[in-house]
């Protein structure tokens, strides 16, 4: 009985996760709530696979339960051994051939989806983004649009009538990472010296979450992904804004002087100033982001101060060292950064 109960729980849990959808979304990273073609194709394939495996489960499970119940030893002194059956060629043939057929069907269904996703043609109006994985943040470059940013990816929504997908080239600056935003696409790894490619074409605007899915070191857990799918207009405006150098007035503030004199510029870049380090995220439009430290904290003045003072308070193991700034220095630098809209 307990076995049956367990099976019911397991099946309902799975069914719930699969079919209880957007009305009360289970999760912003539910693989069964696709909004983009690759995820949609996978969802349809997975439904088919689940149906087939579910059917197999029900059949075999029932036979097992039946056998365990029907052929249990009755308590009366049953001293005789039951009939010894050594095998049956027909049965064994049947349960070899039928699984082979099932496997062939599953294989063919799978092969089609692999080809659809991996060999998808790239239309000429596709947005191209190069994603470079770092320990423990994401660098985004839009080569043709001349934008460099970090940690929060903006892409346009794709209308199914006139698709504008985004094609991502995946590179790594250090170890292996993996780009996984479940509602948009399956994960693809970022491996140094091994460029990979993936694509998404989200049908609905919104913010889609994910995170790095290949262990890359201490702060693998906080290498979060935020993908903003915007209307075409909003996206164009964002691109416009991001491709500007830093909007700074003439006088160099105290904070900017400290920033440009200490080790900050070894790692960080602020377009239009002398800072052009590439080890850390580009800060030119830092204030246009909702989060800092690749999603590890909200982008508030207080968090910014905490981060600069000692990153290991928010993300121990982050590659950014505590800069050892004094109170006034810290305030000045934070104020400078807060002008980088």
């Amino acid at each position: 009985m307990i076995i049956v109960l367990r099976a019911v729980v397991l099946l309902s849990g799975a069914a719930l996760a699969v079919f209880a959808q957007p009305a009360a979304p289970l999760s912003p990273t539910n693989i069964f709530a696709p909004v983009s073609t690759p995820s949609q194709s996978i969802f349809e394939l997975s439904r088919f696979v689940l149906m087939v495996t579910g059917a197999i489960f029900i059949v075999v499970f029932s036979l097992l339960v039946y056998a365990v119940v029907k052929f249990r030893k009755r308590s009366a002194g049953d001293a005789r051994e039951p009939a010894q059956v050594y095998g049956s060629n027909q049965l064994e043939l049947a349960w070899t051939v039928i699984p082979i057929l099932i496997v062939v069907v599953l294989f063919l269904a799978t092969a089609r989806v692999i080809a659809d996703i991996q060999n998808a043609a790239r239309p000429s109006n596709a947005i191209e983004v190069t994603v470079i994985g770092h320990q423990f943040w994401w660098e985004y470059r839009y080569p043709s649009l001349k934008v460099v940013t970090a940690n929060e990816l903006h892409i346009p929504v794709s209308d199914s009538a006139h698709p504008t997908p985004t094609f991502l080239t995946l590179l790594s600056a250090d170890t292996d990472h993996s780009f996984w935003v479940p509602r948009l696409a399956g994960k693809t790894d970022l491996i140094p010296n091994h460029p990979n490619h993936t694509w998404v074409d989200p049908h609905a605007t919104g913010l889609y979450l994910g995170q790095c899915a290949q262990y890359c070191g201490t702060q693998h857990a906080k290498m979060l992904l935020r993908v903003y799918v915007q209307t075409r207009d909003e996206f164009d405006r964002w691109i416009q804004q991001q491709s500007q150098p830093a909007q700074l007035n003439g006088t160099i503030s105290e904070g900017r002087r400290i920033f440009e004199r200490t080790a900050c510029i070894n790692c960080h870049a602020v377009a239009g100033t002398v800072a052009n380090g590439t080890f850390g995220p580009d800060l030119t439009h830092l204030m246009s982001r909702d989060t800092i430290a690749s999603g590890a904290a909200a982008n508030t003045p207080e968090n910014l101060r905490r981060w600069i003072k000692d990153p290991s308070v928010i993300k121990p193991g982050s590659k950014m060292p505590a800069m050892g700034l004094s109170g006034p220095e810290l305030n000045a630098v934070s104020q400078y950064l807060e002008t980088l809209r």
Partner: protein
Amino acid sequence: MATTESIAMPLSDTSPPPLVERLHQWVTTVDHKRLGIMYILYALVFLVFGGVEATIMRIQLIRPLNDFVSPRVFNRMFTMHGTTMIFFAAMPILFGFANYLIPLMIGARDMAFPRLNAFSFWMTAFGGLLLYFSFLGGDGLYGAGNAPDVGWFAYAPLTSQTFSRGHSTDFWILSILVSGVGSIGVAINIITTVLCMRCRGMTLGKLPLLAWLNLIMAGLVVLAVSPLTAAQLMLLVDRYLGGHFFDTQAGGSAVMWMHFFWIFGHPEVYVLVLPAFGFASEIIPVFSRKTIFGYPIMVGATICIGFISMSVWAHHMFTVGMSAAGNTFFVLTTMAIAVPTGIKIFNWLATMWGGQIHFQTPMLFCIAFLFQFLIAGLTGIMLGSAPFNWHLGNSYFVIAHFHYVIVGGILFTLFGAFYYWFPKMSGRMYNETLGKLHFWLFFLGFHLTFDFMHVPGILGMPRRIYTYEPGRGWDIWNLIVTIGVLFQAAGMLVFLGNLLWSYWRGQVAGSDPWDAWTLEWSTTSPPPAYNFASLPEVRSRRPLWDLKHPEDPDWQYE
């Protein structure tokens, strides 16, 4: 067909030798039974260590943004948990049972190479000690010392000197290298023993299934552990001789490490599961009072599994960016291996069908194994469908799947094997009530933890993260998963208590408490050092059935 009394070892005096001498006998032994027991006890200790590491992780993950342990400690925990459980718990315990049982089941006096046997054990034992030595030094014990933190599959280039400074990764490399030598030694021993030491009349077609399964397992070890050894030597060349095997800056390939590792890693899981199938294939017939259904196809399916398992490895790499053709090939081989594996489930089912099922503890564990292995195989098919894998891979769904196989499949049959052969090894019966209590506690805990663990994977939770954000919908599932650990731990305590208590106070078991049919039950419990007074001669797969049923012997039907 006479029965004879066993010949007792003549003792010159009745007092046991002093403790030092007894310990010395154990340390210098080459007797397969003693080495088998040493492997098993060693593995039980490391099973507990691995369990503690898992518990620490589950406590950290019980709620989002928890701070029970630091990220560094957590990363060391999952690395050590995986490495310990695979190399120093699962493999040694299975080698231990193989060592103990194979000579007895084939009617031999010992393994083919007793000294190699001892050497292999001590290499494995030393490897484990070396790995755990890493907890000393470094960050101190509460920082989990200098234990490796690169994950149990240690992907490049995270393991290069650039990203893994200090010696933590070296502990990983060297401990597995050393124990790998031991594993290959055991494997060569098993192959030679099964091929060269069978008793008269025992053709390969009459070999007990446990011996067949261990034979194929040993073949896989020989072919699969060696690539890992090679890859680790390459990694050492990179780390210490300035080599560039996996140095992406010099044009090297991180993906090549993955290929080499998984060429080991996938057959490795069959190394673990085939002996488990062996236990099930011995226990289920005895407790169903029927011979195994379809012995030839069981052997054939095992050989198929052995071959196909060498060709599926890159299904662990569906997300690394292989071509569509490459991915498709590995989908095909992965799905194909489901066929011989599924066949086995049907054969076990058919063995029970029409039988007379006795629900003692060994059988309870094997019945649960059948249900759980079915589910594990089906989630494996899901993972084998590459696009589905692009979501499920590297997520908690995979963790749930492989724990379903290893715990729900392998560990359950191992528990069954413990209870089944404990009387033979110790001469005493275990306590049946405690055995059943162990079963139900562990069954409940296992399902609480690993059934519900599939859900966070479906909801997007990747693996190897020391914490997670609230608002992802993962919280409740992680809580339930952690609660299951309590029941499993309770079950383990009952199990260990039962073993200890029964060893000293259990009822004396005779040579054949289960009315079974293979040769190990024809000798005393425990067997004498020389196993059999006179070497057996057999004519069928169930020699004791032939003796007990002279009017209806197996050899008339096989």
